């Protein structure tokens, strides 16, 4: 991968599964955790059911076998500089607002997602 302005590679990870599929909800966070630990800049994008993972308290209720607890991963990724972007229409259709989201989650729309993806070295979609 090429390096971004701060010398780090940049990875975007799109998340479209939520608590209904604990494994596919957790794998993107495991990848993000490994990436931030490897000095890769990470942006996670949450769309569809994936946006529910950014609702306060939801991550703590999701546990996929043989993976670290999702609640721990969210905190660790945020601590190591990962960014969380959440789809605005996806939130509205689920009657969620910014007040419902975990600390650091930012509400964005399609244009911002496109900008992040086109600026990234690689994008993963789950």
């Amino acid at each position, binding site marked *: 991968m090429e390096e971004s302005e701060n010398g780090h590679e940049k990875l975007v990870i799109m998340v479209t599964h939520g608590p209904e599929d604990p494994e596919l909800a957790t794998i993107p966070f*495991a*990848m993000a*955790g*490994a990436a*931030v*630990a*490897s*000095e890769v800049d990470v942006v996670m994008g949450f769309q569809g059911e994936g946006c529910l993972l950014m609702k306060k308290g939801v991550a703590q209720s999701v546990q996929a076998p*043989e*993976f*670290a607890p999702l609640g*721990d*991963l969210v905190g*660790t990724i945020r601590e*190591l500089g990962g960014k969380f972007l959440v789809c605005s229409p996806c939130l509205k259709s689920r009657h969620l607002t910014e007040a419902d989201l975990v600390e650091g989650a930012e509400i964005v729309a399609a244009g911002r997602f496109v900008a992040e993806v086109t600026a990234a070295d690689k994008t993963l979609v789950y």
Partner: protein
Amino acid sequence: MTQTQIEEATELDARGLLCPMPIVKTAKAMRELEPGQVLKLIATDRGSVADVPAWASSTGNELLESHEEDGTFVFFLRKGGEVS
């Protein structure tokens, strides 16, 4: 895996931690070390056998040695960078 005598500056007990936490905790622990110092990592997650060498290679740190010991995986990692 081979086994030799290496003196570590600090030890990280990652037993019981699941993917990807062993390398996350390793990355955080290495931040506290000076270049050239060695971290001893003990993990039980079998994925760490592949993860730790890959992490070391991609972050400029050096995996000096690794071995399996009573069902745990032990790694000695030297922090990269210029030694002052």
